């Protein structure tokens, strides 16, 4: 015998003030990383370096190389609006960037990045073949 629980809906408010530059950047077509004078670079960006210093912002651009990818056919809750989607990780110098692509990218392909809204209105990183 099975009974149903009371319904519990969860949607969280996420504070992104310390990385606001990144979130605003996406809407301007820019992807930002952070770096520290101690030599560390961060992507995803973070305002605090582990060494204790405050990091500085830098744009990620130019040519990247695809390191791995997948195409998600079994769609999780929160992405019901999407058809199967391709997730790609590409290296851009000292950082690796995750993004989506509409192109059939393979490991080793050279890519460039851009930003655009997805089908749910969220700005994010996309890749296209160079």
């Amino acid at each position, binding site marked *: 015998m099975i009974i149903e629980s009371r319904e519990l809906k969860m949607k969280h408010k996420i504070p992104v003030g310390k990385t606001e530059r990144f979130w605003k950047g996406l809407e301007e077509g820019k992807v930002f990383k952070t770096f520290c004078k101690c030599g560390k670079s961060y992507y995803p960006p973070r305002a605090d370096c582990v060494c204790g210093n405050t990091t500085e912002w830098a744009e990620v651009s130019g040519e990247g190389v695809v*390191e791995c990818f*997948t195409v998600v056919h*079994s769609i999780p*809750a929160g992405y019901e609006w999407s058809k199967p989607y391709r997730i790609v990780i590409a290296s851009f110098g000292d950082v690796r960037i995750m993004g989506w692509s509409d192109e059939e990218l393979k490991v080793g392909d050279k890519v460039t990045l851009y930003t655009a809204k997805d089908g749910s209105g969220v700005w994010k990183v996309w890749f296209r073949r160079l």
Partner: protein
Amino acid sequence: MKVGVIGVGCSKFGTRDVTIQELAFEAVSEALKDADVGQEDIDLSVVGCVGTRGYELMPAVVVNEYCGFTGKGPIRVEAACATGSAAVYSAYSSIKAGIADIAIAIGVEKMTEVDTATSAAIGGRAGNYLWEFHFYGTTFPAYYAMHATAHMAKYGTTERQLALAAVKAHRNAAKNPKAHFQKEITVEDVLNSRMITYPLKLYDCSPISDGASAAILASEKAVKEHGFDPIWIESVGYSSDTSNMTMRENYVGLKATRMAAEMAYKGAKITDPLKSFDIATVHDCFTIAEIMAYEDLGFCKKGEGGKFVENGESDFGGKIPVNTFGGLKAKGHPLGATGVAMVYEAVKQLREEAGSLQVDLKHYRALTHNVGGTGHFAWVFILGR
């Protein structure tokens, strides 16, 4: 102070029509009987449960009460899919520290109380929600699938080799009455199954299972006083890696596994794993995970994991039988239970109580390897008789 495992228990894995506490008690009562002790003999109870897929969001005290351990803890631990190993370690370290003489690690998970899309969205959060799932919908199979495409591109690993790991898992599970899947499958069944996240197909993936396992640990002193017949924990290794997949060095292996293995091997003075263990349980939540585990644990060179399974080296009669009870892939992977169930399998094999799945013992030593998330956590235990 040496620490031994004096009793183990494991529930049937699968879609189970019982509550989390009832499920836990199945494993606990078996373990108590196995050790021939009562609840009053236990000093500390540790409950390992990820707990985000069941109606009971804070289940430790509920499980503890039902199992008869009220007042004996509980400590609740979470390390994603390696939660069970973290629970065993918590019990182990309390005995090592001299705080407890006898402690129980209970690993339990109810995975089937939510629908599959919800389960996928929760599993996708076993990394870094804000920077990955939020933007890109990275599910748990997607993380491993990305490792598969990197491994295939660099080493020529094939979808057929991945499938062979699943076929082996199902063959073993078919002889294990506690396994979720009780049916053998063929390479063609795997290759023709529905695509989950390229290149992983339905039969490359572990199922969504409920399950519980329990292990009772005792100090050397308690062993002598009570006359227990233990399997000793000879060494433990642990490590972790970044929550963000973009911060990893590469995608062809799990660094946390290599670091955990190095620590465990050093502790037990192991130089050649193939000449040291009669059996290994490795973390095969997906077929690619088993292939990377062979390499990262040093069973073969990096890139040769596909050939290792193809040549039957991880099967009965091979260089090292791996996942003799069916692995996560076919036995099932109830997150909190998995690491404890690995200890259960190692203990059963080392006591020669594994029935038709018994391996021949030469070294009287077993290895367990449990990964949390996609190499976010890793644990290696070395057990010996």
